[in-house]
């Protein structure tokens, strides 16, 4: 049931993208997110989605898993699409029918395409990078913040522990729901408020047990000599290689291409 939901949907494979440095992948993701919003015309989107298809094939991840991930945000995309159609205003609109204008339709379509591309790019990172590598990457990228005494290492550790405990707590919630059902608890009838109230006997035991888990984990970490001192070493060293250089150059070329397309073809075709 609940535990079927997987987080950090890593798809194990040996590919160019899998072998890249997590830090570079994170930075390139940011670059592509910016790119998605820089794109101004149809040809630009052609390039963006072309790149997406190319990267997916290169990463050897099934296209279906990408599409599946999009289903989670399809509601938001449709919602913004409809809102934009009705509320987008321009100076001299071309009415197609009723109050729908050509400009609004274009703008909404582009916005939907942007959001979809954004989800696809983030998903590609998730599918090709293990949670550990991701948190390591984030820790490494945030390192400069240590200067202002920001607890970078602690934050990364908290993130990775949280990721680890999500499935455990999920299955525990499942168990508690089952136990409460066996005692006659009713989670399915009544209005929203009633149903929310019915979840209370699930949430409280879950909260208590997670505190207990936290305490035991703390003890276990203490006995394994944990301290956040600078003396700590890393087993896995992140290392950027030729693949990362190629990827950066590739991204730079795509970026330039899109900007050139923007300038020569203009916005909103």
């Amino acid at each position, binding site marked *: 049931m609940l535990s079927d939901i997987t987080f950090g949907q890593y798809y194990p494979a040996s590919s160019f993208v899998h072998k890249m440095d997590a830090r570079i992948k994170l930075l390139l993701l940011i670059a592509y997110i910016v790119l998605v919003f820089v794109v101004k015309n149809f040809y630009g989107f052609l390039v963006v989605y072309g790149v997406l298809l190319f990267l997916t094939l290169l990463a050897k991840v099934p296209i279906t898993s990408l599409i599946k991930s999009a289903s989670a945000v399809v509601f938001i995309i449709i919602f913004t699409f409809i809102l934009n159609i009705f509320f987008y205003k321009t100076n001299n609109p071309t009415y197609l029918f009723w109050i729908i204008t050509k400009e609004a339709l274009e703008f909404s379509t582009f916005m939907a395409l942007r959001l979809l591309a954004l989800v696809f790019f983030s998903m590609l990172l998730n599918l090709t990078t293990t949670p550990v590598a991701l948190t390591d990457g984030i820790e490494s990228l945030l390192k400069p913040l240590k200067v202002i005494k920001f607890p970078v290492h602690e934050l990364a550790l908290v993130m990775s522990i949280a990721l680890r405990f999500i499935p455990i707590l999920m299955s525990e919630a499942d168990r508690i729901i089952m136990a409460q059902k066996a005692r006659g608890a009713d989670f399915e009838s009544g209005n929203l408020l009633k149903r929310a109230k019915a979840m209370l006997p699930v949430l409280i035991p879950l909260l208590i047990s997670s505190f207990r888990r936290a305490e035991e984990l703390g003890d*276990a970490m203490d006995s394994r000599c944990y301290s956040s001192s600078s003396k700590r070493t*890393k087993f896995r060293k992140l290392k950027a290689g030729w693949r990362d250089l190629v990827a950066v150059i590739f991204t730079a070329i795509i970026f330039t291409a899109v900007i050139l397309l923007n300038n020569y073809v203009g916005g909103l075709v």
Partner: protein
Amino acid sequence: MEVISVKDVTFKYEGAELPVINNLSLSVSRGEYLCVLGENGSGKSTLARLINGLLTPNSGRVAVYGFDTKDKDKQFEVRKRVGMVFQNPDNQMVATMVEDDIAFGPENLGVPSKEIGERIDFALKSTNMENFRFSQGQKLSGGQKQRVAIAGVLAIMPEVLILDESTSMLDAKGRKEVLDVVKELNDKGMTVITITHYMDEAVNASRVVVLSKGEIVKDGKPSEIFKDSNELVSYGLELPRSTYIANKLIKKGLPLKEGILTAEELSEELCKLFQKG
């Protein structure tokens, strides 16, 4: 050689009326396989936490290889030498992947990355978990998870291994897997302290200590400890099944030897008796 010395230790949890550990003294020698038995609330888990410095005594002194556990600067020296495996296998894993979890301890100690790799090899080999190096901890069985927990402790290269009810959440198969690994480690010279209320686990031990109300009430070889069943029952403990049956048979007048601990011993004795006619 004495590796752990507990001297006149009293410990009381904040807010509690009675101390959990009451003027207790215990000395553990190198290479011993000590089993601490006691019912719930006898203070056995507290004793384990006192030994590796997670708790410090209100009075008295706990020393590990001469390092006082109260000395904050020497806390790492204590914990480096005393590794501890806890009860719930799910709550001890820090990382998702087995390999990364085992690396956690040595990373904390500042071991260089290349040596961490070697230590992971060693720890996985010692726990017969070589094939699970890249597995997700979540997908392992209970016994396998506890062996990963032991491996995580071994990577710190401790001298003493404490198992705090580490088999109580496992099924029979998982328990055997873990106990076999522990026995093997002890045979190679590791000092082992297991805390449990399963009598059958005491059978492997070279020495058994029975704890009741924060005091040591019995201390000796397993075969000696299990001789007097009535006394053990009064401490809320149960005999190992084979010992229980043997004692009953002796009472019925069968000339069996005293101090039978395992089913194998019992069946052998009975066969001998049968052959004699």
